[in-house]
């Protein structure tokens, strides 16, 4: 027996009016959005309690594509915005989905401070190693020697190790996957959605049109071949050693712990003060 369905079972998660999307053929952003939507569906997340926040960039379009309350902030500010949403209504699940440039160049300060406070927002970074939207200039995650429009002879700036940065800054859940690790990524997003504190997933993502073609990986397939060849799963290994090089991409979960969140401590402090004041 076959069943006729009128609508794609995941249609409710996306805004049809915003399609077609702007992402290039072969872009990894669709895989990330797909994994996110699968995680929402598997957990049956209450969409009325979910907020998606993005900054500016190719991946930033996610805020417009997901059919939930969402906000597309200015470049670099999604975490600051999400902080406000979470504090105004701690019951909401607030997820930031944004780019490596947005979260770690222009908005880098917000990331380390949100992690330090352990505010319960969830951050998914699409790391495509460049500023995709503005034409592929190098940014804070561009690997050494990589060629970009602003590093035609190869990048000489050391990139961030994002999972190390997140762990050192105070995040309580930290993972890295590539777009090839769809199942693990989805499982990881499910965990991220279930954790209380500041949680972070880096998704190493292919950008064949803007980044790959300048770095001898002209197609999505070639970029994913790299992920396949280089990826080494090392769960709960030292994030400081989780390198991304042409030879090796260390992926896995690096941290999963609990500590009081900022909103819990805030509530506690407020109760304590009101009690002292006899209210």
């Amino acid at each position, binding site marked *: 027996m076959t069943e006729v369905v009128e609508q794609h079972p995941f249609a409710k998660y996306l805004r049809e009016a915003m399609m077609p999307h702007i992402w290039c053929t072969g872009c990894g952003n669709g895989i990330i959005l797909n994994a996110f939507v699968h995680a929402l569906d598997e957990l049956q997340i209450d969409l009325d309690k979910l907020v998606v926040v993005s900054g*500016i960039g190719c991946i930033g379009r996610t805020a417009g594509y997901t059919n939930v309350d969402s906000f*597309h902030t200015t470049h670099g500010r999604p975490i600051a915005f999400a902080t406000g949403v979470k504090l105004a209504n701690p019951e909401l699940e607030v997820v930031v989905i944004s780019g490596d440039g947005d979260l770690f160049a222009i908005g880098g300060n917000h990331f380390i401070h949100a992690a330090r406070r352990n505010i319960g927002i969830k951050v998914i970074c699409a790391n495509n190693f460049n500023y995709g939207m503005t034409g592929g*200039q190098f940014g804070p995650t561009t690997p050494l020697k990589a060629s970009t*429009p*602003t590093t*035609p002879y190869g990048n000489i700036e050391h990139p961030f190790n994002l999972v190390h940065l997140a762990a050192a800054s105070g995040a309580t859940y930290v993972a890295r996957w590539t777009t090839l690790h769809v199942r693990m990524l989805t499982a990881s997003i499910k965990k991220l959605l279930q954790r209380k504190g500041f949680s972070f997933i880096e998704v190493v993502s292919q950008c064949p049109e803007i980044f790959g073609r300048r770095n001898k990986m002209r197609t999505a397939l070639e970029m994913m071949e790299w992920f396949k060849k280089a990826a080494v799963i090392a769960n709960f290994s030292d994030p400081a050693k989780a390198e991304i090089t042409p030879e090796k991409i260390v992926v896995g979960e690096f941290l999963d712990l609990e500590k009081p969140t900022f909103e819990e401590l805030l509530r506690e402090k407020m109760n304590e003060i009101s009690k002292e004041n006899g209210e």
Partner: protein
Amino acid sequence: MKSAVEQKILALNGDEAVAYAVKQSDVDVVAAYPITPQTIIVERFSEYVANGEVETAFVCTESEHSALTACLAASLAGARTFTASASAGLALMHEILFVTSGCRAPVVMAIANRALSAPINIHGDQSDTMAQRDSGWIQIYAENAQEVYDSIIQAFRIAEHPDVLLPTIVGLDGFTLSHSVENVNALPDEEVKKFVGTRRFPNALTHEGKTAPLKLDPDYPMTLGPLAFPNYYFEFKRQQEEAMKNALSVIKQVHDEYARISGRRYGDGLLEPYKLEDAEIAIVCVGSTAGTVKTVIDDLRTEGVKAGLLRIRTFRPLPVQGIREALEHVKAVAVMDRSMSFGGQGGAVFHEVRHALYDSSKHPLTVNYIYGLGGRDTSPSQIREIYTDLQEIVKKNRVEEPVKYVGLRE
């Protein structure tokens, strides 16, 4: 006017014209962060750097705030310095814009004019620079890619002039100029190099009682940008205003000197009138729209309508007297604003033109047209309608609606 030197015709868009002019202007430091529609400027320039065509230190910072801070520092250390941005990028520089002008650091910056969020929009309007008009920067707006090229070269001379020492913005309308390819006459490299020369520094008295060029130099230690409380702050600001006044004549001088080499003039460098001497009705505008207005004027003139234009090329410092003298005799003036001053009854250009006309004994009737926000196109037929409105206004001798909107759904 004839050119004194042979020039090369290049097919460049406005952004490329900026990059080319910067390449020829012997710039020491460029620091920038990419943003549409400015990106091409920095990309082209980084190619020049990579090809060894310039001896410029090129710094890709992690935001515009850092880009301008790096330029400020380089400029204070004596370097010739350039950056470029647009929209949110310029807004993010806001804090440092005031530090740069307050430190009298002659940084030159190209702005590919673009709308501000929210809602998000990458297209052309002038909200970004108009919002920074009180930041102490000189503002020059170009009409086409040729003028973009010419203005950037002039900007270094203006900004670095010892009587001025003010940072300078050259505005080019996003996409209309930044991304449209035109023929651009480029001067030979040596001519530009000779024209811009090397930076000159006024002398300052150091805390050790020595006289030294005003820049950071380990041989003559001095502190720049220190505290100045109620006892001194005010005097600093008054001096900036004096420098702006000086800039009015320096911009004209530099423009004249450049015209002798290039054969190109844009009015007197401050204002460019078009068929204005005998005009009865006139439009005032800033930037690329002037090109459209000129073609409409040509049509109207063949029909016997005495229409004219005053293009404001230099918006800061505002040539108040020039505006008054140029428009006094006109019966009705339509001022076009490509940005809004919410709650201010009309846009910034309108306010300033009306202000300039207040001291005239003959008060032309003035009306404001807000247009082209977020990149909305303004057609020749819409410009024609403005002139038709002006004819009505002259007939009735009265302005019924002081602020109107061009091509808006209401």
